[in-house]
């Protein structure tokens, strides 16, 4: 049994495996399948100040080794989370990361202020590809990333801020640096890639929103490359994600520079994916006689 505990911005995670935002709700449903307190952390469903209904259906489609989603930030609003779900997650003893989004810059600042001190970390969703106003618009240009990050930091007295980066950009290194310059305590990547699936019989996109975010095993090499580039562009810690399905995949991201990982789509393929990934990391470390998972972070040697 290797030491799996990691610490990011002073927040302790019992292992480096975190549920990715959007695939795990607020943890209640998966807790019926297994005790979610085994997880390192949970990044909540993306929240906004007001409840949102999201996009029309179909909201999900499939490609080879990938899925596409366009939920469009359906969520019950931040107050509902604070009243109903926060205590539940607290009692579970997992690190709670509140994933937040907004329509305007002010929205981002206000939701950060509301959650400051209530959760372990806040993850800024400035890269949601499925919402026209806000979201992605703020997450593409480095100057916008820096601006929204700086504003959110001003509204946070204690809670560390993660900026979640979009891969649909010109330079991931430049954008990672922009988040760091804006005062981010941590970055996470990658959010989904924008894609489209066409129903050729109807000559129409399968998703009601036409496009959606591509995730799953098929995007992993892109994600690993971007995590490598981003983590070498900044000094702040990096949380990696994109297509992780097993312990070895998580190890790969950590070798590329990630201090922890998030798991999303794999939860759909196997309800017990995350406990299996944690076990897989442990077994790999034991097999290689490595005492702490932290010892593999950023240990890649380029050819």
């Amino acid at each position, binding site marked *: 049994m290797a030491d799996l505990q990691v610490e990011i911005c002073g927040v302790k995670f019992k292992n480096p495996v975190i549920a990715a935002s959007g695939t795990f*709700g607020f943890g209640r449903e998966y807790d019926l399948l297994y005790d979610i307190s085994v997880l390192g952390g949970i990044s909540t469903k993306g929240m906004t100040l007001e409840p949102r209904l*999201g996009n029309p*259906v179909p909201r999900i489609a*499939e490609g080879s*080794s*990938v899925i596409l989603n366009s939920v469009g930030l*359906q*969520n019950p609003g931040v107050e509902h989370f604070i009243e109903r779900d926060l205590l539940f997650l607290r009692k579970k003893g997992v690190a709670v990361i509140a994933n937040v989004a907004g329509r305007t810059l002010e929205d981002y600042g206000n939701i950060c202020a509301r959650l400051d001190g209530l959760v372990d970390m806040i993850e800024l969703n400035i890269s949601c590809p499925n919402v026209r106003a806000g979201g992605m618009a703020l997450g593409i240009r480095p100057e916008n990333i820096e601006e929204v990050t700086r504003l959110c930091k001003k509204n946070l007295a204690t809670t560390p801020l993660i900026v979640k980066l979009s891969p649909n950009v010109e330079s991931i290194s430049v954008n990672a640096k922009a988040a760091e310059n804006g005062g981010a305590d941590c970055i996470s990547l990658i959010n989904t890639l924008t894609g489209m699936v066409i129903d050729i019989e109807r000559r129409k996109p399968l998703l009601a929103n036409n496009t959606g975010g591509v995730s799953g095993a098929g995007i992993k090499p892109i994600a690993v490359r971007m995590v490598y580039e981003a983590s070498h562009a900044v000094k702040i810690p990096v949380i990696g994600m994109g297509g992780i399905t097993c312990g070895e995949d998580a190890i790969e991201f950590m070798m590329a520079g990630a201090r922890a990982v998030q798991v999303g789509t794999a939860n*759909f393929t*196997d309800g017990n994916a995350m406990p299996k990934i944690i076990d897989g990391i442990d077994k790999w470390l034991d097999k290689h006689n490595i005492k702490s998972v932290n010892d593999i972070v950023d240990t890649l040697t380029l050819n």
Partner: protein
Amino acid sequence: MKDLTATVKSNEKIAENIYMITLSLPEDAGEIHGGQFVNLSTGSGENLLRRPLGVCIANGRDVSVCYQVKGKGTRYLSEVGSGRELQVLLPLGNWFDLEKYKSVAVVGGGVGIFPLIATIREFSGKKDFYSYIGFRNKNAVCLLDELSGSKRLTVTTDDGSYGKKGNAVEAFFSDAENINADAIIACGPPVMLKALKAKLAEEGVKTPCFVSLEERMGCGMGACLVCVCKTSDGGNARVCRDGPVFDITEVQL
């Protein structure tokens, strides 16, 4: 709810493009009610999404679901042989709760008949079922034996190639006065459910009517908010967890 590695006991074609797969579970998954569904892996690495399929027959640790071959995932599923292992999450969703009713009209169309069959089996001998089942044509007709628990069974086809020419909704309404049902349960293509809802409203029928809905799903357990339907008050309901069975007056079809 459990995520189990099941063994395929059989996987047979039961009508044109329609298959029934029977899974043998390694352990008890708890009681399974008619209307509930499973989220079944296709067993192919490149199809990441599971397929939500309504339980048709639950018999101890053997669970049978039926599917129509439509795309890559279901085609792959149709080629899975006995003895193969598939991951399955079950039982999921709510069910047709008929405890307080005595006489139930069953309106089913095409691949929508399977959860209705499970419901008739569950309450077999305890309720009177009057079933109105529609298929596209005679090649699509299947599992009529499983509906034999009905007090009366009317089968229709769109082209008249089997049973009565017409559809299940018409067949039900032409017989409705004779049967005095105190509940209606329905599952079928959206066009059928829409027609049913419109006709119930038009005729001012007050009999409670419960419909099982279908939607493309992600997690199958209510976490990902992918499979929503619109409720009558303009909100969203999760088909996988708040449903798949809804009061027909509470959802927009």
